[in-house]
């Protein structure tokens, strides 16, 4: 009897605006508590919300990047509940008429290859404030700086089939949203939050099992761990003939367990109704087209283009497009004359800090032309501060490839003299010691000797006598 796991993710991203969703308070992070507040986000009597144009724009961008159908008219609704981080006693969100619906995101699954995960909806809402439970014993401290920040909520369909797939989906989602400039999607800073819904059923069954919700996961790794733990728990329970209860769970990172956070009787009745303070949100065809034009080349398309235009393999292209600045850098290095495959290798293997594109291109050229050994070039790479030429740095470091016979001869002689034992063994037939001796010459030359020349010279020298 095999089991199938069914997972859907609800993701909240904080939109990259300067001000809050419904008021002009600053959206900056990390300021002293309750200093970015005003009547609107404090929920003072008489205050009214007015939506942030850029937040709408970014949400539409996200929707287009995710292939959603953007609704020309959508409606803000009040989600009513009481909680200390919610100043008005309701959250302004969107309910039955969200900004966008029916999108998709293609994700690489280790088990199933490319999977098109459905995006059921993307809508706008405001964030709640922050609560601190340990600041004052027996009391709750409230900071409303975050209250009213603009969020996009993105809900996937129950299309993921493993915790690993869920993690891949979240990675791909973050990548595309960062590419589109919608959010910085930083889980540590709270600009990306995820809740997971998970159920289990026998393979082949078409109806969904009872799902549980896991909230407030704070890292990609914990998302995967928590879903794994819950999948295992549900499976074990069902195997024993038990029933899964629909509860909300919290993940304990230290123990690796999930535990229920709410008693099953209390589920929230949000009593949604259209917010009378906000007429409908309209995104007309002209605006939609303008916003679409703002979208950069997205990761999938960029990866495919790098593969075809530069002859890269899928893996290398994939690594380069993981972050847009890296892909852009790669192309700049190629434009400066470097061989694409070499450029890709250098960028992927050596990493940051990245030299100026022209410098890296030159460095690659020096290696290709034989002026620098690859090893020597690796030493030059981190020293390539802006404005410095690779050849000068190589000279300064003394690693310009030396082919001069006399210099090579001197090092070879020194090494032979210093390693009589290995020389004797080589002459006795241990051919692989040539590599060791070559290495010693390379060391003595601080990497600047031409390895092929060294090896040939050693072989000739040790041949005789």
């Amino acid at each position, binding site marked *: 009897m095999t089991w199938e796991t069914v997972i859907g993710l609800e993701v909240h991203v904080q939109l990259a605006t300067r001000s809050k969703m419904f008021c002009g308070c600053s959206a900056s992070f990390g300021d002293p508590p309750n200093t970015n507040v005003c*009547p609107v986000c*404090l*929920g*003072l*009597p*008489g*205050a*009214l*919300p*007015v*939506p942030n144009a850029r937040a709408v724009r970014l949400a539409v961008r996200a929707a287009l990047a995710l292939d959603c159908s953007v609704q020309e008219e959508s409606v803000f609704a*009040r989600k*009513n509940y*009481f909680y*200390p981080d919610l*100043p*008005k*006693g*309701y959250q302004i969100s969107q309910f039955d008429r969200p900004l966008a619906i029916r999108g998709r995101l293609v994700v690489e699954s280790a088990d199933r290859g490319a999977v098109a995960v459905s995006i059921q909806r993307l809508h706008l809402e405001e964030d709640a404030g922050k609560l601190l439970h340990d600041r004052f014993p027996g009391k*709750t401290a*409230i900071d*409303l700086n975050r209250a009213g920040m603009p969020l996009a909520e993105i809900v996937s369909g129950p299309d993921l089939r493993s915790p690993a797939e869920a993690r891949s989906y979240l990675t791909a989602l973050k990548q595309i949203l960062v590419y589109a400039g919608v959010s910085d999607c930083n889980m540590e800073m709270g600009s990306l939050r995820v809740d997971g819904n998970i159920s289990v059923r026998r393979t082949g069954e078409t109806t969904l099992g009872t799902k549980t919700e896991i909230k407030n996961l704070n890292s990609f790794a914990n998302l995967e761990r928590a879903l794994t733990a819950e999948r295992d728990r549900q499976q074990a329970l069902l195997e024993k003939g038990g029933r899964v209860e629909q509860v909300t769970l919290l993940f304990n990172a230290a123990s690796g367990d999930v535990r229920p956070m709410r008693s099953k009787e209390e589920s929230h*009745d949000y*009593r*949604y*109704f259209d*917010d*009378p*303070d*906000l*007429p409908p949100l309209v995104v007309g065809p002209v605006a939609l087209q303008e916003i679409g034009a703002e979208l950069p080349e997205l990761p999938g398309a960029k990866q495919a283009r790098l593969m075809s235009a530069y002859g890269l393999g899928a893996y290398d292209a994939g690594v380069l497009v993981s972050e847009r600045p890296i892909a852009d850098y790669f192309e700049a290095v190629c434009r400066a004359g470097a061989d694409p495959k070499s450029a890709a290798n250098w960028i992927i293997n050596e990493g940051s800090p990245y030299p100026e594109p022209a410098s890296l291109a030159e460095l690659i050229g020096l290696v290709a032309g034989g002026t620098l050994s690859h090893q020597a070039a690796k030493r030059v790479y981190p020293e390539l501060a802006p404005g410095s030429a690779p050849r000068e740095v190589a000279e300064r470091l003394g690693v310009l490839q030396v082919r001069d016979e006399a210099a090579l001869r001197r090092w070879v002689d020194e090494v032979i003299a210093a390693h009589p034992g290995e020389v004797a063994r080589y002459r006795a037939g241990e051919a692989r010691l040539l590599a060791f001796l070559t290495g010693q010459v390379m060391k003595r030359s601080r990497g600047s000797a031409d390895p092929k020349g060294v090896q040939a010279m050693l072989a000739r020298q040790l041949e005789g006598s």
Partner: protein
Amino acid sequence: MSAREVALAVGARLGEADRAGLNATLAWSEAALLAEAERVDALPGQGPLHALPVAIKDNIVTTGLPTTCGSRILEGYRSPFDATVIRRLHAAGAFVACKTNLDEFAMGSSTEHSAFGRVLHPMDHARVPGGSSGGSAALVAAGVVPMALGSETGGSVRQPASFCGVVGVKPTYGRVSRYGLVAFGSSLDCVSVFARTVGDAARLLGVIAGPDPRDATTLSAPPITPHAPVRSLSGTTIGLPREYFPGDLDRGVRAACDAAIARLRELGATIVEVSLPHSALAVPAYYIIAPAEAAANLARFDGARYGARAPAGGDVRALYRATRGAGFGAEVRRRILVGTYVLSAGYYDTYYGHAQAVRRRIAGDFSHAFAGGVDFLFTPTAPTTAFKAGEKTGDPVAMYLADVFVCPASLAGLPAMSLPIGRSEGLPIGGQLIAPPLAEAGMLATAAALERVLDAGAEVR
């Protein structure tokens, strides 16, 4: 008079009103009045309301005086910002005279539901001035101030205007900014005006009206400019909706309306009968929609960030429940419970959904009448003259029915007003005009024409 003299005179009259026990004010002080005078004196020119004292209903926030909304839950609350309408009054050179008493959070039709005691009708202390803007109406009627701001959700300015014998005008929904009006029924709330004459009401409305970037529900409409006086109403068609003139209408109210209609005819107006068939559904629909919105609007009052906080042991839930249970009066609690109920799971379509559909039908009735050639509608404002205190507090529904003639125009978002048209047994009677959206100027001109030829103080037979 200099601004300072105005301040002292108003202070004297407010003091007298307090001593007479009217209980129409919740906050005023000579210091605040003198501060207003200083501010007015420092203004460069003389605005359209220069040195005019305006009483402000205590659900409109002011920085100069506390705002309580007639509720213990906001006792002592001082708003850090002024409502947009207050800033516009200030810019026009007007004084904030005082904050006036009201039914708690504007929920009521008699001002008997204030946590700080009821307001007395200036002409008969045993009676109510109407509500919820009873304090503002009473002060204007008693001559303490020439004009006042109130608010309407279901008729709370027109009805007390009718009871007190003053002019009360509600603008088109969205014509006046709600930024700073403590929200009750957000899709219905309108800051509205009281004055003793139609001309003054028009002036005041003209100053406060206009789009506001802080309120997303305000309309871009041209300013309401005062009309040149109109002497003749020939060319104007006035509709009389038959549903507002039932056979059992109070005889005094009927007589006053008949007299007013006769005057309208004499002025040259064409009078036609029309029908607004869904009128009877207005009060029930209102008492679903307004409480639903109110329940959400009042959820912010929890003792956490401002206002009063009840002493409560235990957790934050205990704090919320104790604060709200003690801080809200009985009518407010009823409305919150009704509002919560009609939105709760399983009931949305039955109540709230249905009520919104009815609301659209009611608005449709008015559109149909206006499209059929009617310029304005004329009706009684209230089914009776001012009733006695305590008469209707035993049955919530009886109180709700006091709004039967004013409620429909609120649901439809139309501009509407009441002007005094006579007396019955010494008590004022108001006649109501209802206009199409954005037709305030024409409505006010028609009202002014009628005002000129009516003796509003005359006892009707």
